[in-house]
């Protein structure tokens, strides 16, 4: 009978969900009356379930309606894989997967969005996936380098870090020299490749465009755009990764946890 009043299938479904949900809230009411003490759990489960299922529906909608959206889903999956890879490089560092994931998602995600917004990357699968994956792979490599260096620096300076803490330094201040060293070291390859761009090498994107018959200046400029995006992604990812990690190697009472076997 509802179908008589609601012709739009989505509105209809929403009304149906609302009615079914209200019925379920009747259970909550019963639970309250009978003092079953389950009203909190049931309410949360209902609201959570609704939100989760709607999100899944919206993701599927994007995928079905707009094939480009698949690109974002694939990139998200790639980011997770990238985070796993660089977390492996961070063996011995606490919470490494989560730290890598946050830094890669924010570092490459933000640059990717800007690139799409200003039209540097076209909104089609054939552009989004290769350029996007190139950016996040660079973020991943930089995060790996940064983790590796940060761990090495901290382990080599346990005594200095303890001395700084002992003098009343905050954990951040105590490891600041090693935060800097790790970020700088991780960015050296990126800065060097930008510096030698065109002189030592003509990189892949430009080569491809030239072979494809593009205007050389256009190809050159596009290559520069790519390189600066790579540098930005790398720097953001590295800074985030090291800063987030630097907090996690201390206890809440500001004691250094990461200290190798002994000492």
């Amino acid at each position, binding site marked *: 009978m509802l179908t008589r009043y609601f012709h739009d299938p989505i509105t209809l479904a929403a009304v149906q969900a609302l009615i079914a949900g209200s019925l379920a809230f009747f259970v909550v009411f019963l639970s309250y009356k009978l003092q079953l003490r389950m009203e909190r759990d049931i309410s949360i489960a209902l609201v959570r379930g609704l939100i989760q299922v709607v999100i899944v529906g919206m993701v599927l909608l994007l995928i079905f309606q707009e094939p480009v959206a698949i690109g974002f889903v694939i990139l998200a999956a790639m980011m997770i894989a990238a985070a796993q890879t660089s977390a492996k490089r961070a063996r011995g560092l606490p919470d490494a997967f989560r730290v890598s994931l946050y830094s890669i998602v924010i570092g490459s995600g933000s640059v990717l969005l800007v690139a799409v917004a200003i039209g540097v990357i076209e909104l089609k699968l054939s552009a989004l996936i290769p350029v996007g994956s190139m950016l996040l792979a660079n973020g991943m490599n930089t995060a790996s380098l940064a983790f590796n260096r940060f761990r090495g620096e901290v382990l080599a300076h346990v005594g200095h870090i303890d001395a700084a*803490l002992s*003098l009343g330094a*905050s954990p951040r201040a105590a490891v600041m020299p090693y935060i800097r060293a790790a970020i700088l070291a991780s960015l050296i390859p990126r800065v060097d490749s930008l510096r030698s761009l065109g002189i030592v090498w003509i990189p892949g994107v430009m080569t491809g465009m030239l072979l494809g018959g593009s205007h050389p200046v256009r190809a050159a400029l596009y290559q520069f755009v790519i390189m600066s995006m790579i540098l930005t992604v790398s720097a953001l990812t590295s800074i985030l990764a090291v800063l987030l990690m630097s907090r996690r190697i201390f206890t809440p009472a500001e004691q250094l946890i990461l200290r190798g076997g002994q000492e």
Partner: protein
Amino acid sequence: MSEEPLLYTERLSRRVKERFLVEDVNLSLYAQEVLAVVGPSGAGKSSLLRLINRLDEPTHGTVYFHGRDYREIPPRELRRRVGMVMQFPYLFPGTVAENIRFGPRQRGVELSDADVEALLERVGLPGYGDRDVSQLSGGEAQRVSLARTLANEPEVLLLDEPTSALDEAAKAGIEALLREILATGEFAAILVTHDLAQAGRLATRMALMEEGRITRTGRTEEVLHAYQILS
């Protein structure tokens, strides 16, 4: 000594993987006194000082400072007021003056050149402010390390084998300096040393530590006597 101790530990313990590095330590430290902690290598003396400085967390027990459980005091404040000098100086790269300024700077206090020079004079290194720390001898570096801790104006000094990494001549110099600084009565101190003669010269009271536990405390001569019989 009838007054309240400045600092005391209450069943202070740290266990790492089923093994007690420090176990049930009850020690008191009164204003102005110098308590030596002696004992064989591996007894847990450094571990004990690290716990009192809260560089490690006790697994049982705690420390009271001015009658307050030290876990209620922000760690940075505690570490500033209960300063530590380690066996190795661990100076930060840069000049001597930068090292001296480090502690006060952490709480937004910038020492003047005169302040720095006064501290350097106090540790017998007048005019050393502009020197690069990489050019210091072992004894000089340890003096800078002491001045760096004094710059924080601590009430308690924790001294972990401050002379054991030095040659004989430098050792005598640092010991004389410590004696002079401790004699002012500005600080209470816990001195960890494996040099019993040094402990006898600097300390007013002594504690013997073995396998993580304090097995004897008392007047310096008494504990020394007991320790020498043991070993």
